[in-house]
């Protein structure tokens, strides 16, 4: 019998080629795929919303988001994804599925999405102009500040969008979480949208 082993790789592996594309000059957009994260979907069970909020507070030291926003903790980000549900995004297995038993005990249903989603960080001076082609969400800093989040659609594809902490140079960072099987399609649309500004493509192991 032939030897068989799983080859773990990003859903964008076939299409993401690190490099510089599009218009010449200073690149206006940077697209960075964030790889190897832990992502768990948490949904309150019927009538257990308050109980879940309490359990989340105990574990993370902050209140889980009850409105569209992303809340950062020391080692995780809690992102609103719908009524009475949120994502836990982290690295290093500390808040991975297996470690979250206390939340699962009674108040919430958990679902491991670590390999079911692709996370793309969009930054650069033209990031907002580029995203405006795909999203009807107003991303102006006066409306969509650091920590703002939205469950929305881009190019007819459901995404979870949130603004992470600004980069050291003050540039905004927009995080886009998309279903793995739709990621390749959205990636092409993103590249096309960014081409006129010049785009730097890369991937990283670090959460933005």
């Amino acid at each position, binding site marked *: 019998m032939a030897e068989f082993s799983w080859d773990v790789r990003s859903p964008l592996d076939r299409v993401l080629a690190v490099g510089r594309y599009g218009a010449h000059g200073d690149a206006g957009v940077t697209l960075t795929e964030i790889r190897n994260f832990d992502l768990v979907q948490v*949904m*309150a*069970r*019927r*009538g*257990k*919303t308050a109980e879940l909020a309490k359990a989340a507070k105990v574990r993370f030291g902050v209140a889980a988001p009850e*409105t*569209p926003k992303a809340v950062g903790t020391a080692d995780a980000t809690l992102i609103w*994804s*719908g*009524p*009475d549900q949120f994502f836990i995004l982290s690295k290093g297995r500390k808040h991975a599925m297996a470690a979250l038993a206390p939340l699962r005990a009674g108040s919430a249903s958990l679902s491991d999405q670590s390999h079911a989603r692709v996370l793309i960080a969009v930054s650069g001076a033209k990031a907002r102009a580029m995203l405006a082609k795909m999203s*009807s969400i107003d991303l102006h800093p006066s409306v969509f500040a650091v920590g703002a989040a*939205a*469950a*929305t*659609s881009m190019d*007819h594809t*459901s995404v979870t969008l949130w603004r992470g902490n600004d980069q050291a140079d003050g540039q905004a960072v927009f995080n886009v979480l998309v279903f793995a099987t739709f990621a390749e399609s959205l990636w092409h649309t993103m590249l096309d949208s960014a081409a006129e500004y010049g785009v730097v493509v890369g991937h990283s192991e670090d959460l933005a």
Partner: protein
Amino acid sequence: MRIVCPFCGERELGEFTYLGDAKPVRPAADAGEEAVYDYVYLRDNVAGVMSENWYHGGGCRAWLKVTRNTLTHEISAVEPAAGAGAAKVGA
């Protein structure tokens, strides 16, 4: 047309799916054939204000009850449908 989702805020129509009249109520199990036929097949063709089910599938995936004027498209109320979000179940 835009709909103000009670969870997400104002969003474009493309994020929503229309499911139809929110008024019909499932009849009791012993209500009889006529009541079931009415519930499954018969719909009012309202010219004016009606209550509709919409699904925010391109956003928070919540079911919404939208009060809309079919002549003007004016939306006068949007509320979560029963069961939208664990906190609202049965509300």
